[in-house]
């Protein structure tokens, strides 16, 4: 028994417990807080992964009290938590919930917040460490940051206590606004204390990209232009814009999805091995990929991008309205709800390998995946047994959601005679292999922020590099006539131009 215990303690590294702190959520009465943040915090509490001395102070314009906030939080957790509410854990968790109401630009309200934080620090022993979560629209960032600059936070983190800030996307609406936002944040916080959250990076399968690539010796030798024919990244949503009509109509699919989530996925799939698995090394390599993406000129934008907007149609057995019929969307809106494009990463590893991206709303199904298509084997050996003109290529697909997992498609012989070839998938399902529920992305990212690990957060230079690429496309779109929209029916895979884009290269979109 003694030997076993010793072996156990030496072979399994202990998880570093986060330091005591107080989480301040701006926008505490909003959807994000109730659907994502509070359930994530509660699940961390269930797993005993919250800081040992911890409190949450909600701040919002809605008038409310500590008690009401706790009651609302309980309802949210009952509705949205991945695990049921445990009364014992809830009681101790709820005791650490507090609420301050006030305007984001109102100094008096912020003074009350400061007083509350001081009181909470005394009561809960949060040690003067603060994590500010800006779960508010970007228009409120400036006010909040200005007010925080008046308090004992921000750069004071260079001392014994720390203050960090989590910012939700969008990180600007273009390169200029992103730079302005970065400047504004840097005036109060150090870059190391700014956590730009992209919840995609918190997903287990996204993190697994790095493990899959760099912990398996067989992958690295073939992960390059010699063996890879092309890469497809798909982020397909079956839902429409829902209640985000007014935000989305100003934003569009390119800014909403490509600039952030998809650029992050590309950077993870295309990056060089980092020196270490830490925030600095990983992000250094990611940003190199973003800088290597070839900027588009107008002629490239014409041939290598396609955009569309959905009209009425049927998705998953439901009749759905067209985009222009959605709430808070302009009747004559030309905002794109679908984008497809071909990018090149001009690095030694990826020269001339096309990266095809597509994302859209009201597509036939929800599916996010990265598919690496390898070059075909020479066909000569099996030509006489094939009905098709070419052998199917091997495809490695990494499913981000749903049914998280990895598949490798390869050709196999159909049993019996005569010789017939048929593709088969070697399939790894995350959930079926590890019979446990993975933590939500927000659980992972909140815990990392408590610990001060920024590996899975986006750095300012990454944001600006991604905007540089995006702006080259936006500039091209501004100089060519927009397509007549709506140009794809809800429940289809986008406009015909998207198919033409990839078919011109002799390839096809994967059927998901």
């Amino acid at each position: 028994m003694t030997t076993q215990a010793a072996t156990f303690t030496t072979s399994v590294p202990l998880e570093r417990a986060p330091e005591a702190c107080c989480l301040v959520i701006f926008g505490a009465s909003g959807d994000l807080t109730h659907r994502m943040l509070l359930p994530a915090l509660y699940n961390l509490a269930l797993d005993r992964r919250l800081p040992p001395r911890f409190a949450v102070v909600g701040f919002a314009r809605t008038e409310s009290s500590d008690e009401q906030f706790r009651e609302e939080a309980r309802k949210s957790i009952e509705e949205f938590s991945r695990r049921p509410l445990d009364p014992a854990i809830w009681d101790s968790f709820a005791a650490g919930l507090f609420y301050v109401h006030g305007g984001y630009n109102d100094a008096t309200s912020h003074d009350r917040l400061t007083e509350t934080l001081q009181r909470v620090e005394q009561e809960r022993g949060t040690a003067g460490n603060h994590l500010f979560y800006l779960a508010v629209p970007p228009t409120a960032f400036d006010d909040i940051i200005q007010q925080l600059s008046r308090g004992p936070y921000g750069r004071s983190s260079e001392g014994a206590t720390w203050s960090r800030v989590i910012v939700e996307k969008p990180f600007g609406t273009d390169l200029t606004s992103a730079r302005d936002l970065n400047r504004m944040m840097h005036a109060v916080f150090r870059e190391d204390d700014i956590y730009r959250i992209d919840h995609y990076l918190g997903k287990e399968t996204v993190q697994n990209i790095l493990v899959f690539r760099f912990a398996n010796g067989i992958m690295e030798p073939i992960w390059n232009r010699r063996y890879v024919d092309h890469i497809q990244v798909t982020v397909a949503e079956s839902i429409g814009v829902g209640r985000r009509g007014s935000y989305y109509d100003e934003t569009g699919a390119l800014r909403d999805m490509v600039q952030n989530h998809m650029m992050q996925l590309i950077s993870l799939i295309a990056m060089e091995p980092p020196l270490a698995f830490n925030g600095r090394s990983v992000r250094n390599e990611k940003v190199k990929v973003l800088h290597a993406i070839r900027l588009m000129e107008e002629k490239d934008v014409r041939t290598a991008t396609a955009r569309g907007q959905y009209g009425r149609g049927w998705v998953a057995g439901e009749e759905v309205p067209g985009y222009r019929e959605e709430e808070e969307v302009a009747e004559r809106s030309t905002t794109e709800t679908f984008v497809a494009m071909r990018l090149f990463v001009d690095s030694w590893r990826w020269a001339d390998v096309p990266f095809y991206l597509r994302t859209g709303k009201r597509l036939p199904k929800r599916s996010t995946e990265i598919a690496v298509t390898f070059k075909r084997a020479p066909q000569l050996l099996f030509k006489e047994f094939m009905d098709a003109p070419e052998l199917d290529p091997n495809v490695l697909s990494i499913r981000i959601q749903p049914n998280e997992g990895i598949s490798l498609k390869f050709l196999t012989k159909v049993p019996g005679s005569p010789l017939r070839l048929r593709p088969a998938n070697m399939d790894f399902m995350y959930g079926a292999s590890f019979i446990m529920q993975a933590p939500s992305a927000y659980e992972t990212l909140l815990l990392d922020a408590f610990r001060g690990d920024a590996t899975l957060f986006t750095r300012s230079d990454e944001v600006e590099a991604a905007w540089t690429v995006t702006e080259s496309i936006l500039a091209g779109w501004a100089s060519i006539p927009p397509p007549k929209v709506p140009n794809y029916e809800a429940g289809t895979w986008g406009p015909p131009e998207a198919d033409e884009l990839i078919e011109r290269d002799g390839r096809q979109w994967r059927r998901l």
Partner: protein
Amino acid sequence: MAEALDFEDRQLSWTDRAVDIDRIEAELTKMRYIAADETDGSDGFAIRTSLVNMVVYAEDEDTAAQTSRVIEELAGHHPSRALIIVATPTQDESRVDASLAAHWHLAPDMDQRVCCEEVTLHVSGRVAFHLHSLIVPLLIPDLPVVVWWTGAFPDDTHLIQEMCEVSDHLIIDSARFGDQVGDLTRIGVLAELHRCGVGDLNYERMRPWCELFEQYTESGALAPWLNAVTSVEIRYADEWGRTTSGQAFLFLAWLAQQCGWDTRSVSANGSNRLTIRQDERNIPAYMSAVGYEGVERGWLVSIKVAFEDNHGSAMFSMSRTGDPLHVTIRLELPEGVREDHVRIESCDSPTVLMHQLDVAPHSGEFVRLLAVANPLILATRA
């Protein structure tokens, strides 16, 4: 809710009414997890890696049950995720009822149980006109989609078009079509429109006749005569004078393909008599119904092909004997007469479907045959 694994009934199942696709997907995932959870146990239970998405359109419950049994029989060779759709668009209420099942079998000579997933959707009301919106989310990504249309060719083609939209390969049974011959031309149009391959179970049943003919022509005694066909006579089982036979037209089209005839130069005298003009020769082709017990209406009973060239004449015939599975082949050549007796393969649904699934998705073989058959069919309809 998915029930606990029940090895007695050899299936894990779940059923619910008025469900949405998200729920079905969630239950499918749950079913896979339950199965995976059992894999470590001594029972060795595992969901098979599927090689194909099989989407079946069934007109009614009985057909759905029959196709389910056929698919289960095929699972050993062609593991698939099967979606069986029973659609009744005429009902007022737009609704989807679903049942899921994971059937498993003890693989022969193996300890491990293997299992395939089956989703049955009962679709009623308006949503039945938008089947692709239900089917696509339930397909396994990046695997071929084979659609098996089990019924007659519909007057309103909306449903079959919906199915073709998601299909790489459409399997039909032209024997079940109201107009066995005329509807083949409509299938050809559909295939071209949706760029999918087509296979016909009725053609598969007739394939042994083609293979027998090939044995004698490819390298056998008939090889030198292939360019000297002077007439073709095809008989099929039916009451005399009734209907036409899909198998007869398909055989004639196949023969035309083998002989390299241009079927666009054709004239017809009635629905069963054709004359194909080839190389300055007229080749008459007669199709006629004969009474024959033991096979279904429209199935081939006998084929006679006559040849003549500068060296003389020859005749090749194949005809069913009293036992429908036995065929007598008679070859009359200038050098003598030869008779062979062969047993042809069973034509049950699993067997012919298996042959179809062996054909690579997107195979153009049958579509090419339809292109040859089309002028023949149209000539008889003019």
